[in-house]
């Protein structure tokens, strides 16, 4: 098949059917946008999980009547551990102050009794400590006499994992749906285009055009539509990201100390090439079905 001639004819086809194709590309761009937005969510959850997973931390709540000597000894033990990078002692007064500052609720809370805020040791682990390792450290520390309670944030991590798993499933489901939409919409568009170009197709067949020659431009046109839809969606998503990431970042940074990220170059490439590929497949299927001569 002559690719150059197919491209020339595909360009003519795109020009002649532009209204038909604009409708198809716009609706598919919406589908791609949903998928892209979900992928953006997955990317950010993933980034957050990795970041928090790496900067592991353990909180040791201390007994109210703990012996200061025991606490000092505990600190020495902690600082001797290779996995620990930093230990901070938080007094009940500090805990109360930072809670009131972050919670930003009514004045009633100011009268909470100090027992609500026990003293604690905030243990920051070095980067790269696995979750299992941090669990075993936490359980060993729980046996110290001065410690009343240990929080290793395990439940929190499990929740994040669940969330991430759910988001990934949602993305996979949407991806499947998008594939179906692209195949259906482009297939239908190409079917219409074939019907509208019936006369030209007949002339070409009578002149001795092979099926490949006749079908080539339609496949290219479908490919272009798939690519254009994905590109439009990525651009819209990028525009949204650029417009919103600053205000979102400042809120997020205050809450969790993290910033939002955009889709990776690979994800964008996969979206664009995937769009082109599925578009080509959709039109090839359609053309095989409606252009059998």
């Amino acid at each position: 098949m002559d690719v150059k001639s197919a491209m020339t004819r595909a360009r003519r086809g795109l020009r002649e059917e532009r209204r038909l194709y604009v409708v198809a590309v716009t609706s598919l761009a919406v589908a791609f946008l949903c998928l892209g937005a979900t992928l953006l969510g997955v990317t950010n959850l993933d980034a957050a999980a990795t970041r928090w997973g790496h900067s592991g931390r353990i909180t040791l709540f201390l007994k109210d009547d703990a012996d200061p000597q025991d606490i000092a000894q505990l600190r020495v033990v902690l600082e001797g551990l290779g996995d620990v990078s930093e230990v901070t002692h938080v007094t009940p007064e500090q805990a109360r102050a930072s809670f009131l500052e972050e919670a930003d609720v009514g004045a009633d809370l100011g009268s909470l009794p100090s027992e609500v805020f026990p003293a604690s040791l905030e243990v920051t682990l070095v980067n790269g400590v696995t979750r299992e390792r941090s669990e075993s450290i936490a359980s060993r520390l729980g046996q110290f006499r001065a410690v009343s309670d240990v929080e290793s944030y395990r439940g929190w991590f499990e929740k994040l994992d669940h969330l991430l798993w759910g988001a990934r499933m949602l993305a996979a489901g949407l991806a499947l749906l998008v594939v179906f939409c692209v195949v259906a919409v482009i297939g239908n568009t190409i079917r219409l285009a074939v019907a509208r170009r019936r006369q030209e197709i007949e002339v070409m067949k009578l002149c001795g055009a092979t099926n490949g020659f006749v079908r080539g431009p339609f496949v290219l046109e479908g490919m272009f539509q798939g690519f254009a839809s994905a590109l439009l969606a990525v651009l819209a998503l990028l525009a949204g990201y650029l417009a919103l990431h600053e205000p979102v970042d400042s809120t997020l940074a205050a809450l969790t100390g993290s910033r939002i990220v955009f889709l990776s170059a690979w994800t964008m490439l996969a979206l664009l090439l995937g769009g082109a590929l599925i578009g080509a497949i959709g039109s090839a299927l359609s053309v095989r079905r409606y252009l059998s001569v």
Partner: protein
Amino acid sequence: MQGTKVVRPFPFFRAGARASQPQLSKPILVLEDVYKFFRPDQPTLRGVNLLVDRGEFVFITGPSGAGKSTLLKLVYRELTVDEGRVLFCGRDIGRLTDGSVPFLRRNLGIVFQDFRIIDHWTVFENVAVALEILSIPQRLIRSRVAEALERVGLAGRGPEQTSNLSGGEKQRVAIARAIVPEPALILADEPTGNLDPHLAIDILTLFEEINATGTTVLFATHDHSLISKRDHRLVAIDEGRVVEAQKGLKHWPGSGIHTLVG
């Protein structure tokens, strides 16, 4: 069907290939005992035998519904025979695979009553399409299309929009498209059916000029006045069989074709 893998049954069917000497002496088209049924009880063609030599100009006639178009369709493989054989350059057309049919058609130029011109294409584009399918370089396409347009009397009118042309001009564009790949055989199915009598004569003359350069022409028509003006070989289809009319018969007696035999 085969996509990029093209089946080329015979070297002669390849684009640009020229027939070798022994092929030139053989008849270009032979129909042997051809049957075509659209209804099981009543064949449209029943036992048609026809032999066309290279370089001939043949009128195919018969009343509407006689089977003229059907006969031509068997040659360009729009239809296949139910019995018998159609040989083009000695090869059995009925046995070509679907993938080979395009390569048969590249050796044929086909012209219809309804022109089959793409209205939103220019004159040039309408003619060039026959060469584009052969993957010929654009530069060569331009010069060969210009040449073909000159031969049909449309020199320099390539850039014009086809929708603005008159019926006679549209048919000239269709003829240019048929001759531009230099086919061995031209099949014309009532090419003057939609034209005024004086235009019909012009188009007939054009086909005769093409025939004079060595191209074989099968010209199907039921227009007696056109046939009677010329001296060409006349083949009539009558009740599914072909009847050779005598050469030089200029006066068409009565209405029935039957009266021709004799």
